[in-house]
């Protein structure tokens, strides 16, 4: 579903050039859920943003659904992958009602009015239809994150890119959102790339995890490794140790 080869991302110019992601390659199969863990600033979000088409600083090759994509995406390519952001407070336009938030993707893509899809979208993430009329500030963090997920799903993408979707949420709410994500994947066979610094979240959600440090992947763990706490690199061992203090 996703293939990445030699992805490099650098910001800045000349003396200020900063290589953030250094020649990483990976692939994700259809329906698979891949996790990426690593310290703050190691480049996790950057990889994700490059995949989504938000950053244009990358070189290398990215293909989605067996189709090589460019820095400038066509509508169809954009339709393949949607992203859910870390901060539910900042990722929804504060002056749009929820119905508008959910209808906007359809309208922006000129695929109709979009209003008719709102009830279903809400239902899919388990929110009552009445929420359509609310403003984001009238929702709790968890509810907002549900709206964000609903918005990502309105366009029926096959890939969902999740950038720390629960790290701004309380454990109790995190559980609800993670459950929702698992359910959705089961129902619709979505492909996930989930970025987090929380190993336990990755372990809970993912079939496979890549450990990232300073722009490169230092380790790859499968589900069994994750459950057993088995690692193949020194850094991931440290990570495991401190995560489960």
């Amino acid at each position: 579903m996703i293939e990445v080869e030699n992805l490099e991302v650098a910001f800045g110019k000349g003396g200020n050039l900063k290589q953030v992601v250094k020649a990483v390659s990976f692939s994700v199969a259809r329906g698979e859920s891949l996790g990426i863990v690593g310290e703050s600033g190691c480049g996790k979000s950057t990889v994700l943003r490059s995949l989504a088409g938000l950053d244009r600083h990358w070189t290398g090759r990215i293909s989605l659904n067996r189709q090589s994509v460019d820095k400038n995406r066509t509508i169809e390519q954009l339709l393949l992958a949607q992203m859910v952001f870390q901060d539910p407070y900042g990722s929804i336009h504060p002056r749009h009602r929820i119905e508008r938030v959910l209808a906007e993707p359809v309208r922006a893509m000129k695929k109709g009015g979009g209003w008719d899809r709102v009830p279903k979208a809400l239902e899919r993430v388990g929110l009552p239809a009445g929420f359509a009329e609310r403003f984001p500030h009238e929702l709790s963090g968890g509810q907002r994150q549900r709206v964000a997920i609903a918005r990502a799903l309105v366009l029926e993408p096959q890939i969902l890119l999740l950038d720390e979707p629960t790290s701004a949420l309380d454990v109790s709410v995190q559980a609800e959102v993670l459950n929702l994500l698992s359910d959705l994947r089961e129902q619709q066979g979505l492909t996930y790339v989930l970025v987090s610094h929380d190993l336990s979240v990755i372990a809970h959600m993912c079939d496979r995890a890549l450990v990232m440090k300073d722009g490169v992947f230092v380790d790859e763990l499968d589900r069994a490794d994750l459950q057993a706490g088995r690692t193949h690199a020194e850094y991931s061992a440290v990570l495991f140790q401190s995560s489960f203090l």
Partner: protein
Amino acid sequence: MTEAKMIVQHNALHQGAGRFYRSLQKSIDKLTREPLGMLGFAVLALLILVAIFAPWIAPYSPITQNLPQALQPPSWTHLAGTDEFGRDILSRLIYGARITIQTVLSVTVIVGPVGLIIGVVAGFAGGRTDAILMRATDIVLSFPSLILALAFAAALGAGLGTAIIAISLTGWPPIARLARAEALIVRNTDYVAAARLYGASPLRLLFLYIAPMCIPSVVVRLTMNMAGIILTAAALGFLGLGAQPPSPEWGAMISSGRKFMIDNWWVAVMPGIAILLTSLAFNLVGDALRDLLDPRHARS
């Protein structure tokens, strides 16, 4: 249209109205907790009423002269006294409210959108567009503003219209800067990133996503600017370039009244009080609006 659909729409309409009503209620609720803001709104409302009903409220004509009655101190017949032409100052203030409101609104209506659009475009587009627009803003800003206004007044002939254009001409840069600063923040938010992801066009981003976020602070700034507009009009009046006689524009009144300040204080003080109250009201309203519209900069 089917019956059911109609009912749904009907209900939606009711809900819409209810929603509006509720948010209005909320705003008013918030306001009542802010007595100063309330006062500001009340004064402005009063001012607008006075402006609308001027002919019915004003005891005298604002322009009819009565030279033998010139420079009468405030009394029961002339509550605010008379000016050097024997005109009733109170009546002139009442009619002047119309002109003042009209001036302030005209300038605001020009400056607001122009500043907003330039600022938002600069902030959103970034790069060269930003640099060019911002340098242009700097240049206008570095023009001595009264000189520019004077030049325009000289070119187009003195008058209120010219004054409005001249004030507007120098008024937009601060708004543009403010809007740009806001746009720069909004541009990098996740909700804009998300909108890019679902293919929103730049125009859509600009007008549906970014501009609405800049409007509240621009509106707040504009209300606070209003006092300044009245004062600039007064300064132009001081130099003979504002509203032309016999128009009872407050700025012109205070600046021609200054000639009598020592002996006949009321001629300059009465319009001064009107200006002070109005600009106080605008400022209070601005503060209140900030609380209502712009929670990010809210006072609490």
